[in-house]
């Protein structure tokens, strides 16, 4: 498989305070890769560094053979890397339709945009009923669907998803993860996913990395991570479950 994204020795953070140190990760075309880690481990920092919101103080980020660190976020979106922010980052005071249109902000192919809108409604029929509603009035699950739908409107090559299940009811979390699964199976999207829901995230991911206090400590295929005792103890809650048994 073709290497799509590689992060090489990247350190990044906020001002002088580094949140990630010497991080190396790879994402191949067509893969779903998950980043697992506790609060403050640096998962979101890594995503935001890739999308250009933060600049790495060290290291390189290569996307499709091209160095992208140092570019501004809007240029990186144009290259095909689209981030869905933690907390969904929808434009609350704009309507659902306007949000979706904003997703295609950098595109000029009007006809194709219309087609993509129709496809988005097929994926998320909920949104179609709410077109002229303000996005801020949607439920959490609908907002997440809107955020995903909007990111697809940009026709991304690589999707960066920051905790799409945050604060959602279990049924909705399942739906969102199913959507991620479909995006990869049916539409062949490449996705880098940050999740605290390690168990469910490993169900849809091919591979994963575990971040601890800003460093990658474990990496491997989803099954390997599942079998890893340390991962089980820290992120999959196995010991708690065995105590209950």
């Amino acid at each position: 498989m073709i290497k799509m994204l590689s992060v090489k020795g990247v350190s990044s953070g906020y001002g002088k305070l580094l949140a990630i140190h010497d991080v190396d990760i790879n994402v191949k075309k067509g893969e779903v890769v998950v980043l697992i880690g506790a609060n403050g481990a640096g998962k979101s920092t890594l995503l935001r560094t890739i999308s250009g919101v933060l600049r790495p103080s060290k290291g390189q980020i290569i996307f499709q053979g091209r160095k992208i660190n140092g570019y501004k976020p809007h240029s990186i979106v144009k290259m095909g890397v689209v981030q869905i922010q933690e907390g969904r980052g929808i434009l609350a005071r704009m309507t659902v339709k306007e949000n979706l249109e904003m997703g295609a902000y950098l595109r000029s192919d009007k006809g194709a945009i219309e087609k993509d809108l129709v496809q988005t409604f097929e994926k998320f029929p909920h949104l179609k009923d709410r077109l002229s509603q303000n996005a801020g009035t949607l439920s959490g699950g609908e907002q997440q669907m809107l955020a995903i739908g909007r990111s697809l409107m940009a026709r991304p090559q690589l999707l960066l998803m920051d905790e799409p299940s945050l604060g959602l009811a279990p049924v909705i979390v399942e739906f969102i993860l199913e959507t991620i699964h479909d995006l990869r199976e049916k539409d062949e999207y490449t996705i880098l996913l940050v999740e605290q829901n390690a168990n469910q995230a490993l169900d849809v991911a091919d591979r994963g990395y575990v971040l601890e206090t800003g460093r990658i400590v474990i990496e491997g295929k989803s099954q390997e991570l599942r079998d890893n005792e340390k991962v089980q103890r820290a992120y999959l809650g196995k010991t708690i479950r065995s105590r209950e048994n």
Partner: protein
Amino acid sequence: MDYLISVATIAGIYIIMAMSFYLPFMTGQISLGQAGFMAIGAYGSAVCSVKFGIPYVPAILIGGSVAGIVGFFVGIPALRIKGIYLLLLTLGFGEIIRVVFINVEYIGAAAGFPGIPYQDHSLLYSYIMVFILIIFFSRLRKSRMGRAFHAVGSDEDAAEVIGVNITSVKLIAFSTGGFIAGIGGGIFAHYQEYIEPLMFDVMHSVEFIVFTIFGGIQIFWGPMFGAFVLTMIPEFLRVIQEWRMELFGALLIIMMILRPQGVIGLDTIQGLKKVSSRILGRGLS
């Protein structure tokens, strides 16, 4: 009649000023320095007419452009700060401009700048500018740039990851706002014939904000309506004139409680459209 024309002219100029505040406001930038840009436009165009004999329209355009360029440079530090800090920065800017003008002998210093050629058709020119602004803002609403403005104003971080170049959007909004204020200042100077730095103090910037908040922030008709009504009412109710800042304050508090989006909201426009289409429909059938 003369009196009516004079009030209407001032109202037109204040509509221009309210719009100069509204444009950067759309992108989330609140400026307390619009009177400063107005002063730059007023003095700039006055210098053009008096010292260089440049005709009215180009003089005003030059004044506006100078204000726009200054707006660009004030907009650069404004990119990095938000809310109360931006308010302070722009407040400081407005006062600096005023203090500089008080001390420059070339333009009359504190004594003011007299002898600016009087423009008979100030009323016409101010409403031509208002008309241009109406076209500009209604086009902006439907344009890509307008959507970007709206997105940046709604959530800057979200707009950034969608792919909006927030640096250029905010700079364009801020400097265009400065340009519009400069045009307003130019028309004002050539209507008053005499300008002095005191005419551009910070309380005027506050008034432009009041016009906007009162009139409505969702759509550009709001600040236009606010500026017009709040200029006209105190003129016709002379008693209120002396108490108008107090009145404005009370009005704002009442608005915050009863209708935080301002008098003219999106619902007003939709309602008007419905009513007018019903009337038209009945007329046709």
